[in-house]
């Protein structure tokens, strides 16, 4: 039975903690969202449950977490809709083939490295009923994802959003996220339809039908929102509610299909019109819900994360290796690709550092992995640590690598890079 008093207490504590820790992180030059992620971990068994187990048991008893999860999932559905809406893979085209190469390499390189590393991890840390294909593909997705929203926030705070590195990084992150979610969808397919070819075919057919309906039907329909916005300079209350309902409906469809509600929300966002002012308007309207509900997701993730599951030097070695492989793959792949495209060394390094930001998107992916049992709670905790470390390291490393001088505006592409991009475009 719903204990409304306890739920309100939980929300109060979570929001207060996330604002406080977010503020502290802001003071040390980190984006607030990184602090909010850490606040979630602090409220879980890793810190609060360890220092004050009785207090933790009173505030966050296991039986009460279902309601907290439900609320956080609603926030996440809206958040994923906004992520999809803010992603515009067409931006990649305007960046030339240097960005295309950097983007594709920043997925394929860490993905394959993670799959290779899975050969080592699978016999040691995998769950018994998970096939290697599912495990390897999931690890690949988890290590190749980039936190598009956190990345955009870091770039904006450092006034780099309009710089060449900024525009390429945002475009690459957009492609990474779309690709990552497609692969993750496939992994969920594999898991959900394991040992049953009929349900696999049904699931695949249903999903293809849904995607086609979104691209060729719903896309035209939602274009009306943008037309109404252009005409009146705003959207009516009814239109906003309708958009909200469409988001929930799309999420519900993919939930019924057995994939995950977040895929539906993301897809609806992806087919929304991309006119920048319209995107900014809708984002601003829905942002308040996200601000309030996203910390609940961080807390829920934190309550599932226990560093105490990582026992002994052997487990901590696995954890360190996970951080290392994730960093080498993502940073190395992106930096190497941009170097081969003729970008200066410092900018190539900066792009690698930016693409290594996993943040919130990683936590979303990991929670799905835990829910479908493709990873164990121990591996989940290790991967959460990897997400926190790689996100935390972005800002200081970027400050170290990217001086004011390095931040150039988008048009100032060095001659060699321009030449390669022109050559690539001509092809």
């Amino acid at each position, binding site marked *: 039975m719903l204990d409304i008093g306890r739920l309100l207490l939980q929300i109060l504590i979570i929001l207060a903690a996330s604002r406080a820790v977010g503020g502290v992180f802001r003071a040390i030059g980190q984006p607030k969202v990184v602090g909010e992620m850490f606040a979630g971990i602090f409220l879980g068994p890793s810190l609060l449950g360890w220092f004050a187990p009785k207090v933790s048991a009173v505030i966050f008893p296991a039986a009460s977490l279902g309601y907290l999860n439900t609320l956080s999932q609603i926030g996440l559905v809206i958040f994923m809709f906004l992520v999809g809406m803010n992603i515009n893979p067409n931006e990649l085209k305007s960046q030339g083939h240097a960005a295309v*190469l950097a983007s594709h390499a920043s997925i394929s390189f860490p993905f394959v490295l993670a799959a290779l590393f899975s050969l080592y991890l699978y016999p040691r840390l995998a769950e018994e009923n998970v096939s290697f294909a599912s495990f390897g593909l999931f690890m690949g997705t988890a290590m190749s994802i980039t936190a598009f929203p956190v990345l955009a926030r870091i770039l904006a705070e450092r006034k780099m959003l309009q710089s060449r590195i900024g525009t390429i990084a945002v475009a690459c992150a957009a492609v990474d996220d779309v690709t990552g979610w497609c692969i993750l969808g496939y992994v969920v397919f594999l898991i959900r339809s394991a040992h049953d070819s009929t349900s696999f075919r049904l699931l695949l057919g249903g999903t293809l039908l849904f995607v086609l309906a979104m691209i060729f039907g719903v896309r035209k329909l939602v274009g009306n929102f943008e037309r109404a916005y252009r005409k009146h300079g705003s959207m009516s209350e009814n239109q906003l509610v309708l958009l909200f309902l469409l988001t929930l409906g799309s999420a519900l469809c993919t939930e019924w299909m057995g994939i995950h509600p977040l895929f539906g929300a993301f897809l609806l966002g992806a087919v929304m019109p991309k006119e920048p002012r319209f995107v900014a308007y809708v984002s601003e309207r829905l942002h308040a819900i996200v601000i309030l509900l996203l910390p609940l997701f961080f807390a829920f993730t934190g309550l599932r994360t226990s560093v105490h599951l990582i026992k002994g030097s052997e487990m901590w070695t696995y954890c360190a290796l996970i951080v290392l492989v994730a960093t080498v793959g993502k940073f190395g792949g992106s930096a190497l690709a941009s170097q081969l495209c003729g970008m200066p060394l410092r900018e190539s390094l900066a792009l690698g550092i930016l693409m290594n930001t996993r943040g919130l998107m990683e936590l979303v992916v990991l929670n799905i992995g835990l829910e479908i049992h493709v990873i164990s709670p121990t591996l989940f905790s290790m991967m959460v640590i990897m997400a926190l470390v790689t996100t935390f390291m972005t800002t200081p490393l970027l400050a170290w690598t990217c001086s004011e001088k390095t931040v150039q505006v988008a048009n100032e592409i060095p001659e060699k890079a321009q030449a390669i991009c022109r050559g690539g475009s001509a092809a």
Partner: protein
Amino acid sequence: MSRRVKDFFVAYLFLVGLPLAGLAVILQYGRQLTAPMSVNGVWTVEADLDRFAQLLCMRPAENGSRISMVISQSGNNVVFHLAGSPQAVNGTIEGGMVRAFSATAKQANDGGCKNAASVVLAARVEHKSEPRTLVGSLSVLGCASCIPVTFVASREALLVKGD
């Protein structure tokens, strides 16, 4: 085709094409691998519990010949905790075999365990049986005169994820 275009394609092949081809090989190779067998959960142990308790420095069982045991698992690493036992025993699972080793059994509260010794638990997982069972023995290291205690354990429930 200009040199620049060629450079682009070579770079693309090297950084994208080659890794993707490698992925296919990795996935194919990985099919041979097996994940650690799951022994995580709450088990009921059937054995001569008096001798069992003696070896582990526990209080003798008060009722019947069954005792509860919790196994928590992190990949290949397992931790055994017998109800009433003063300590947990760490071990590993390799293939279908579980091995655990208690460095030195501690003195029980009632002081009934005078010859504290190292105890070895070895068991085979019968993964095809439903519920899953463990068949094995508990023995004392370096004690020729100590007769190992055999036991059979059946899994009653899985531990809740995150426990």
